């Protein structure tokens, strides 16, 4: 797609733009629960902020790259053990690179982004409640999780796509609102044992972007 864009004759509308992004994301962590039928996985909201740059080849096609800090949080609880409930907080640094297609008028335009991303799992923590049946006590806890190099896959990549609208404030400034979806194709677990156990993040985001257009 990018190659096609590059082969297209550049028009007089070719231009750079840079911006900052901020928004919220909702992540769902998929794991095969097998026969653990009392487990429940729930999505959680998180935040995302970043910087973005876009080069528009034409007035309808550009290439965009972001550098985002993004949270991929989720919740896990047990219906058989009500005292057990965990909230995971995971911070990632991500680099989505997308082709950006836009359409519409001068002031108000629609757009669609499609591409891939690479990311790195910066850190992880969890909080919640658990129970010690031997001591017959339930506890609230909050802890940082240490990565295990054998088990945890810290590199993340996948596909990303989004749709949104842009409002051109003036010659050099524009605002965007975008709904985006990250589909991870990398399991958060390495295959550290002969029994395959893959777990994936699925993250939706709603973000605002303020652009300066050169």
């Amino acid at each position: 797609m990018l190659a096609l864009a590059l082969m297209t004759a550049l028009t007089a509308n070719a231009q750079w733009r840079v911006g900052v992004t901020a928004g919220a994301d909702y992540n769902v962590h998929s794991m095969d629960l097998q026969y653990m039928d009392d487990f429940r996985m729930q999505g959680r909201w998180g935040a995302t902020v970043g910087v973005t740059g876009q080069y528009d080849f034409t007035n309808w096609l550009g290439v965009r790259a972001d550098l985002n800090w993004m949270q991929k949080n989720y919740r896990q609880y047990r219906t058989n053990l009500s005292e057990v409930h965990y909230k995971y907080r995971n911070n990632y640094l991500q680099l989505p690179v997308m082709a950006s297609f836009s359409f519409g008028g001068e002031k108000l335009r629609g757009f669609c982004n499609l591409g891939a991303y690479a990311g790195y799992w910066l850190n992880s923590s969890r909080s919640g409640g658990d129970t010690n049946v031997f001591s017959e006590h339930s506890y609230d806890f909050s802890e940082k999780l240490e990565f295990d190099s054998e088990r945890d896959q810290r590199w993340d990549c996948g596909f990303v796509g989004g749709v949104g609208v842009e409002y051109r404030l003036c010659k050099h400034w524009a605002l965007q609102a975008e709904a985006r979806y990250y589909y991870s194709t990398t399991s958060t677990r390495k295959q550290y044992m002969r029994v395959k156990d893959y777990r994936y993040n699925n993250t939706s985001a709603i973000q605002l972007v303020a652009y300066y257009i050169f």
Partner: protein
Amino acid sequence: MKKIYMIGAALLMLLVSSCRETNDVLLPYDHNDVLAFGAAEYSFAGKFKVTWNGLNQYYALWDYEKEQGLDWDAVYDEYLPQFEALDERDDSIPVTDDEVKELLSKVLSPLHDGHFAMLWKNHVTGNNVTCVPSLIRNASRDDAEIAKKYKPNISYYTNPANGEIEISDGEPVCLEYSTLWTDMVDRFRNTPGQGMMWIEDRLLQLINQPLPTEMEIFQRQSLSDLSTQLLEVLSQPNAEQGIPAFNSLVERYSYLNVPGFDAIDNAFSQMAISVKFALLKGNIAYFYFSGFRLTPYINEEYAQSTFNLNNYATFNHVYGIWSVWYSWFETIQQLHKEGTLGGVIIDVRGNGGGMMSDAQFVAGALLPSGGFQYGYHRFKRGTGRYDYSPLMPAIAVTMDDEHEIVDDKPVVLLINSGSVSMAEMTAQVVRLMPNGKLIGKRSHGGLCGLIDNEYNSTNYAGHIGIRDVTPVYGYVPSLASFTMDKEQLEGVGISPGIEVAFDENAFNTPTGIGRDTQIDRALQYVRTGN
């Protein structure tokens, strides 16, 4: 144009969704699942796969084992072909129990958990083959044989002639009782005027009768039959076989009215215990108990639900145990209030553990109410190898009722390689007490806990299969135990602050039971502080 976009979108979705891998199917091994255990009924390779996969999902110590150098996946690759070879063997060379045990031991002996046991049914011989890795590991300990051979015997110390016992009203202050099968047999055989001694005396009487009546002839014959059968029953090695056989004779020969020939409550086969109390010179309160099974004897509610207390003989046994513990406890209360308590020695050598609630009657009877944190527990929280809960405080139960807090006198716990589980938890408690000291030899290394309920695997740990039902049964730790420093000692044990060996020669003297060098060292520490 629209169709092209739609086909393109569909292809894109297919491409995207095919980028994710599919998990292996997991089978549940915590109950008698036909799919999980089917192949294990008739195949050694099937049994091995159940064992390997069951442990892979339910064993709580994989991170610890990894630190110890164990590669569990490599174990699968190495041993599956060996079990497959057993399956392929010709029927003319049957696979023996010893062969199965040897191979199974090689698979499991690297595992460090001190409680873990695996039981396979050898489908060729029909026999059960058991492997307990901690027994294999501890067999090489320098006190392993001694810990098995000798149970604490304080007869030297309770003999007033040896000057080690406090005397009150001319009597040594000591008490002991036992509901262990071997001790009940011993009492039945050797109590004058009761049991076997009465039978033998009566038989002799009847044999020497010059002109016996018909009734006396009948009684003599019956007593002779009873005596013969009793000799066989009383030689049973364990309560599980002995008690039902004994009770059967009680029922059959009740008309003979033999004193002390009473049915034994079946609860004593699981809840038997031996206890000893002595107030040693210097007002040192010594207490020994063979297992953490005090609760059914001390807690009234528990006693009512465990034993048939309406039976006079049963009530006496329960009272016998309770009164020994109570003598120890009450002596401490009294002497500590008066300010004359010298110290406390609790003996858990050879004690294999048991009920958590017992903690309040032992070390917990010396500590403030409200519980005592002795470390941390971590549970399995899923079927992945490293799916764990956070570390949670491990709290020992302490006595709720008002009692003396013994924080100003030495408290010694005697341990050895036969001290397991709750005995080691008690060691963790005493070690943390400012006035506590561990004396003896390093404990067993079985600090992780197990859940007794065979159907409770809500932690995705605890059991593989069902005992005596599935061809593979595993008793698996439900949790990992950590010290207050967040160290794991599983398979290693707790080292005493003062290490001292048990001297067999000092104990087994030509004139009888002699000194116990570990008790001697404890007494020295309590009396001198060294």
